[in-house]
């Protein structure tokens, strides 16, 4: 090995150098992302729309765009609605995913068949799900046909044209697709449960339910926390399903943040307003993040303590 190369390598090996190696490209990338963010902040402070000349000539208006955004009922509702979708979809995904994983945790005939199949939905492009559902959900479509068969009488749920059911359809699409991910996460969690505490609990005469409630569930909490944070983060970004299924309708029942901002920015050309809304959203999200981080950190700490013991 040539001396120069050796010297370079041993320079890279030094802890103070080595530990920063991955940070250089990552920080570079983050800086690369930061510049458009600065542009976003700038745009939020001026009054620019695409139909009004070039952006660097737009007049400075200070907080006016923010005031406008807060007063924009559609925006406020889109935020509330999106959080609502997340609040409805995520617990369902967690519940279903957990329940299914619970049923699939032990070995039994057909387990492989089920676990393989249940992973399918997350592998399908959400846009495909949107189109697929637009065929399935029309009121005389296959889904209502099945429901009628099960109910033994004609059932016509207006999945995409009723104000409430359309929301349910969007939540349903999310649940259908992402329960698979939660299932996978929880199933892995079960697979990774340490056997000793469970054996100990059994030795102490705990019933199956007690073992589950007092031993397994607490041990699985960190896994559930991860699934919770992961899914709520993604659920705040719902875009494909409403765009491809309902166009945000009927009324504005399925207009999510992403859909509304797309409209304001591109269709209505009000880029500055969209920028202000984005920043407000960011504040909301950061608050949410702080809570999520709190949960994650608590779970991690708890885990570290358990590991130490």
């Amino acid at each position: 090995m040539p001396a120069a190369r050796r010297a370079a390598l041993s320079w890279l090996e030094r802890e103070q150098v080595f530990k920063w190696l991955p940070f250089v490209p990552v920080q570079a990338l983050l800086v690369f992302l930061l510049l458009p963010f600065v542009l976003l902040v700038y745009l939020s402070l001026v009054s620019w729309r695409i139909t009004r000349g070039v952006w660097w000539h737009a007049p400075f208006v200070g907080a006016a765009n923010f005031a406008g955004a807060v007063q924009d009922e559609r925006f406020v509702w889109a935020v509330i609605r999106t959080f609502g979708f997340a609040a409805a979809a995520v617990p369902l995904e967690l519940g279903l995913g957990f329940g299914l994983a619970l049923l699939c945790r032990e070995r039994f005939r057909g387990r492989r068949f089920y676990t393989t199949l249940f992973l399918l939905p997350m592998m399908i492009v959400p846009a495909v799900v949107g189109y697929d559902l637009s065929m399935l959900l029309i009121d005389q479509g296959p889904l209502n046909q099945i429901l009628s068969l099960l109910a033994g009488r004609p059932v016509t749920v207006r999945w995409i044209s009723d104000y409430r059911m359309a929301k349910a359809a969007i939540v349903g699409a999310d649940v259908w697709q992402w329960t698979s991910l939660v299932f996978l996460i929880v199933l892995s969690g079960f697979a990774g449960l340490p056997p000793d505490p469970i054996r100990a609990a059994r030795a102490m005469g705990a019933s199956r339910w007690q073992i589950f409630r007092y031993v397994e569930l607490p041990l699985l909490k960190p896994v559930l926390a991860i699934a919770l944070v992961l899914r709520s983060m993604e659920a705040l970004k719902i875009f494909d399903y409403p765009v491809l299924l309902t166009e945000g309708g009927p009324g504005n029942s399925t207009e999510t943040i992403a859909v509304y901002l797309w409209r304001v920015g591109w269709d209505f050309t009000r880029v500055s307003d969209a920028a202000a809304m984005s920043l407000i959203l960011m504040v909301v999200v950061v608050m949410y993040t702080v809570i999520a981080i709190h949960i994650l950190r608590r779970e991690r700490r708890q885990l570290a303590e358990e590991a130490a013991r």
Partner: protein
Amino acid sequence: MKRRWLVAFVRHAILLAWTAVTLIPVYWMLNTSFKHSGEWVTWPPHWFPEQPTLENYAQVLTPGSTIFELGRQTLKVLKPLWDSLFTATASALVAVALGSALAYSWARFGTGGKNYPYSVLTIRMLPPIVIAVPFLVYYVSLHLLDTYAGLILVYIATSLPYVIWMMLAFIEDVPSELESAARVMGASRFRVLSSVVLPLTVSGLVATFLFVFILNWSELLLALTLTNTQVSTIPITLNKFQSVNEGRDYGPQAAIGAIATLPVVALGFLIQKHLVKGFSFGLLRK
């Protein structure tokens, strides 16, 4: 004995119900992809194609126009399929490499401070629409609009938080004594990574790769904004297949859906062994 039979019965009943829920939309996609256009939307719905056809697949897979040869591929799925594969794979690979290196550095040396991974997580929380407009302006000035590099860069950035988070848990599961041992035995830090850390976190790497691959493979909004003619991904292409008499071209769309699902499913099955291990996020000690 009777009780056990009952448990098995209930278990299979519930699991079969969810199997049906899972399979019906997938089946409907496949079913539609083999139907002639007249059967896509019918009252009542047709559960089997009356005259199964491959024309939808032919339509999306055959390059060139059927009537006039324009010397290029239009409305076809091969190019978007390739573009999607390329962008999703490249971005997932780079993101996994960078993200896991960063996670390693943070886990072992606490580089960047206590809150670093948490703050990186914020990137992922923002809906991509938030950055779409400034990104467009930015990309135009950097000549990154409508390029592979541009799309891959933004996908790397948006996947990094997940990679860091998933890999962090994994790396923390590798006892640091193993690394010390290797170093004392003469391994360089890079050799430690390749001989010890990498083999021990391979399930995590694989699962993480699949996860961000799926996310990038499916991404619609940024792709729609940041590409024009040179790059076109599967989700954008789905949007394109619309025809006059039937509005949405359900058949070809279903065919694209089936084709687009296939690589991911294949990938998923290939690495199924790693998946269950990988997605535990290393949170529980074995």
